[in-house]
C-alpha cells in the first residue's frame, strides 16, 4: 500500500493504518531504534511508541514522505530513551561513537537545548544542501541512522578507508559551515 493511502487511513481514523504502517515500515523503524539503543526490547517499545505518536499527529499533519516522518519520530524517541539511561558513559557502540565524532564539529559553548538544537538542525540542513549526493548519504546514514562503518561500506560498495575519509571531510566542512553561521563560536 502506498504512503498516500496509508495517510488517508490515518485521516479517516481507520485502525488498519497502524497495521499497514507496521507491515511497511516496522522493520525500518526497528532498525533505527536498534542502532541507537542496541536492545531489542527497548527498540520494540520505541517502535510501538512511534505508531502511537503517528496516530496522534496524523491528522493534523499530512506527511508526504511517510517513511522519513516515521524515521524521525523513532529516532527522537530512541534518543530520549538513550539519554534517560543510567549508563551515560560511552558505550563503545557505533551510535555513541558516531555522536562523539560529530561533537568535534561544535566547539564548546553555552547552549540551550531545545532552541539551539533546532537552530543547529537548520544549519545542518544548509550544509547538507551543498554536499555532493554520495557524501550526503554517507553522512546521514552515519549520523542520523547511526549505521556502523561496516554497514555503510557494504551498502555503498566502498572501502572502510574511503568511508572514513568521506566522513572526516564532511565533518570538517560542517565545522566550517557552523562557524560561518555563528554557531558554536
Amino acid at each position, binding site marked *: 500500500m502506498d504512503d498516500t493511502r496509508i495517510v488517508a487511513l490515518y485521516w479517516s481514523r481507520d485502525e488498519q493504518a497502524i497495521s499497514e504502517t507496521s507491515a511497511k515500515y516496522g522493520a*525500518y523503524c526497528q532498525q533505527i531504534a536498534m542502532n541507537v539503543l542496541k536492545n531489542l526490547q527497548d527498540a520494540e517499545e520505541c517502535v510501538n511508541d512511534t505508531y502511537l505518536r503517528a496516530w496522534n499527529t496524523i491528522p493534523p499533519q499530512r506527511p508526504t514522505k511517510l517513511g522519513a516522518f516515521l524515521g524521525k519520530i523513532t529516532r527522537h524517541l530512541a534518543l530520549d530513551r538513550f539519554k534517560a539511561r543510567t549508563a551515560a558513559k560511552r558505550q563503545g557502540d557505533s551510535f555513541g561513537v558516531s*555522536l562523539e565524532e560529530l561533537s568535534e564539529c561544535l566547539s564548546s559553548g553555552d547552549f540551550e537545548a531545545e532552541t539551539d538544537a533546532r537552530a543547529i538542525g537548520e544549519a545542518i540542513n544548509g550544509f547538507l544542501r551543498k554536499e555532493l549526493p554520495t557524501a*550526503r548519504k554517507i553522512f546521514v546514514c552515519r549520523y542520523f541512522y547511526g549505521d556502523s562503518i561496516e554497514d555503510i561500506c557494504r551498502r555503498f560498495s566502498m572501502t572502510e578507508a574511503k568511508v572514513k575519509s568521506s566522513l572526516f571531510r564532511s565533518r570538517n566542512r560542517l565545522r566550517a559551515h557552523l562557524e560561518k553561521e555563528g554557531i558554536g563560536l
Partner: protein
Amino acid sequence: MSDKTLLLAEAMGYIDEKFIEEAHSEARGVPYQIANRRRTFRQIAAVACLCLVAIGVARLPEMVGGGMNASGEASPMAPSSPIEPSSPGNKFPFFDKNDGNSGNTPMPPAEDAPPQAGEPPAEDISPEGVGGTETEAET
C-alpha cells in the same frame, strides 16, 4: 556522553525529510546493486580495451608493411593479397613451366639466346664473307 554530543544528536533529528528518504532508499540496496553491476561492467570493458590495445600494438609492424623478421633482418615486402595460381584468363604474370605461352612476357627466340658458357661465339655467316668454311666444305 556530553551535553554537546546529545545536542548534536538532537539537532540531527531536525534535518530535512528528503535527505532522510534519499539515504534510506540507498540503504535499501537498489542503487547499491546497480552501482555494483555498473562497476563490474566498467572493469570488464577496461580489460577488453587493454587486450585490444595490446593486440594492436603487437600487430602494428605487420600493418605498417615493413617489418623485421625474427633474426632482425629486413624482410621483403609481403604481398597484400595472396598469390593465386594461374588460370585461364588470369593475366597475372605467373610463369607455369608446362605452358610457355602463359603470361604476357614472351619467351625469347632460340637464335637470340645468349651463348652458353664454353660455347664459341656465333659467327656471322654470309656469302661474301669468309668462305673458309665453305671452301673447305667444297673441297
